[in-house]
């Protein structure tokens, strides 16, 4: 039995060593990534200057045509992340500030995402390779209930989120395989999809009165002299519980309601996402309202 116990200990030690080596290897790969996604690009970048930085979820990613800002002479990038929540938007801004980005304006899409403070598992995972290399990321995750496992168990984060930062992603990162994430200055255009769901039910959705990460973004902008523009972006015609946007307005008077800036379904790819034409109309309106001297 003693022999077996020693053998078992050996296996445990081997497993721990393998996990440490794999952790180091994967992290090293992500540390040199530059062209796969927005998180890696920001993390591995140096100081940049922007007139406009766009943050938010897919409703930012698919709605703000960054090139239209550039055409007006404004240096812009759409850092909206599909599937992301305010947890990730806030962390993204923190990383930019840590890397000494000089930003004049932040446009934050703040509407449906105000209803929760939870992290978006799949998007938050993209920051995890750097958790040991960034105090900012570490601190941002510190209050999460799985922080200790993610931080202290070697390779655990790569196992837990293998679909996002597992072997396949690491391999493609290592060979510098490009994605379309950074194309169009971060804006991802959607097409008009036939038979798309043009109904949405947000009756049960309520904005949190003091969303922690929204307030965090607001404070960060204030502390760094960044002009903060928070907007609600359009939704299709057939939405139940449209008073959600009124509730947001009540809780956060500074957030501007652009829900009706584009209304017809022909401008939507799905109920919550405009197509490229709709996005262009909407972006034109935003540029006109905030960046055209009158």
């Amino acid at each position, binding site marked *: *039995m003693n022999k077996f116990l020693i053998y078992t200990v050996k296996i445990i030690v081997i497993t721990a060593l393998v996990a440490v080596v794999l952790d180091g290897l994967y992290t090293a790969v992500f540390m040199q990534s530059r062209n796969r996604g927005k998180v890696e690009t920001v993390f591995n970048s140096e100081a940049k200057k922007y007139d406009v930085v766009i943050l938010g979820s897919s409703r930012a990613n698919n709605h703000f045509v960054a090139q239209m800002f550039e055409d007006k002479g404004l240096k812009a990038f759409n850092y909206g992340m599909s599937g992301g929540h305010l947890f990730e938007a806030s962390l993204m801004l923190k990383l930019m500030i840590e890397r000494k980005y000089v930003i004049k304006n932040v446009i934050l899409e703040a509407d449906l995402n105000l209803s929760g403070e939870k992290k978006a598992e799949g998007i938050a995972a993209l920051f995890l390779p750097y958790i040991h290399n960034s105090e900012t990321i570490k601190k941002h995750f510190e209050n999460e209930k799985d922080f200790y496992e993610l931080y202290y168990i070697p390779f655990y984060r790569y196992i837990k989120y*293998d679909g996002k930062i597992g072997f396949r992603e690491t391999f493609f990162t290592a060979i510098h395989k490009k994605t379309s994430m950074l194309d169009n200055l971060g804006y991802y255009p959607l097409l008009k999809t036939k038979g798309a769901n043009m109904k949405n039910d947000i009756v049960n959705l309520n904005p949190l009165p003091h969303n922690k990460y929204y307030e965090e973004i607001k404070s960060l902008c204030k502390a760094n002299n960044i002009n903060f523009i928070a907007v609600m972006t359009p939704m299709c015609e057939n939405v139940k519980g449209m008073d959600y946007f009124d509730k947001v307005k009540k809780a956060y008077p500074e957030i501007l309601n652009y829900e009706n800036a584009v209304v017809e379904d022909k401008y939507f790819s799905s109920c919550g996402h405009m197509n490229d034409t709709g996005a262009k109309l909407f972006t034109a309106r935003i540029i006109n309202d905030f960046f055209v001297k009158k």
Partner: protein
Amino acid sequence: MFFNSLAFAVFLPIVFFLYWFVFNKTKSTQNALLIIASYYFYSCWDWRFLFLLVFSTFLDYYTGIQIEKGKSEKSRKFWFWLSIIVNLGFLGIFKYYNFFAASFSELLGSAGIQASPILLNVILPVGISFYTFHGLSYVIDIYYKRIKAEYNFVDYSLFVSYFPLLVAGPIERATHLLPQVKVKREFDFQVAKEGIYQIIWGLVKKVVIADTCAIYANAIFDHYTSMNSFSLILGAIYFAFQIYGDFSGYSDIALGVSKLFGLDLLRNFNYPYFSRDIAEFWRRWHISLSSWFRDYLYIPLGGSKGGLWMKIRNTFIIFVVSGFWHGANWTYVVWGFINAVYFLPLLLSNSNRNNMDAIQLKFNFDSVKVLLSILYTFSLTCIAWVFFRAKSITDAVQYLKRMITSKDFSFQYLDNERYSYELLLMIGLFVLVEWNNRNKIEPLSGKSSLLKLALAIAAILALGTYSDYKEFIYFQF
């Protein structure tokens, strides 16, 4: 509690410690602990089904004794048929009742008679097909006086409920397992080490091969109408490796875990995809079920004795019943039927026992023939697997039809944002490792075992699929 779960990683060492350090005085204490552990393990799915398991155990225990004690043939027959009917009755109600009720209603509907069947709102108790077959083999063996009835209820209960085999086999025989639980087990380092190798290799098969293949197979099968020939061929291959990795991986873990407790279970898989014909495939795939059907259905039906038609009839019966055992769906029945059709030429030409020897390859034409026959047999199994995997027979037929008619062999991007061909390298590597170790139970033992172990652990950690977790396929049967 799945074998590849964190809960099991905690459960197993605790039971191991208690078994060898606290309850190690006698075989009775060892067996008592294993029963408690097994019942706890089973109740983790649904504690209510524990009553069914205990009832089934008690039924076979009691009827077994009554059959042995029976003074007249009439009395022996009564207890024998009572056990068979109740056992199959439970299986029928839980597993097949809704299927038959719905099929009957459809049949009436096609004849213009409207009927709304009374369906039962029950979930299938996990492992019921396996422990029912345990019990049946035990009672049948007693009836035919092949074995003596077990009078120790604890020992018998352990034979039926032993946790490594409880939910997905292997389907044990009383002649093999009962004698082992009748004696006190002594710890054997070499056996336990073999157990560890099997557990780790089983995990490689499950989380690296099966669960990763599942991602691609699902994406292809679920959208087969938009897939081209190449993707559909790959889909069938991926599913073949998914089901192999899943079930043989489970069996390896079960056998390995059991070795840690000093109990040897029947081998369930013997590198089936290296078979040279379908008969050999069925001698290597789910061996405990194939041999069960051979011994308790095929042979009692007359086996290969009698005329040609009798042989053909018996072959079709065991394959179709075997298919139906897997689940209450016509797709499984057709899968069984197709395998019977594959088997038929071998039966008619009396060549179903041609490939009994181990495969040896040399640099000659015969070896090329062997490799081609392996490839041919694998292709046949892949076609049959399409029926096993598809939601309906129509889907399976359409899948195969499209595979031939699409004639497009370009690389396709799947709905899950992966290319259909991505897994080929990993599968190729896996096949190579298994091929080179086909004469061993698993590839990790032997020379440089510690290094191979480290590589297997690295594969489990780095290449395993965790976020898209899949239950063991055979748990649903």
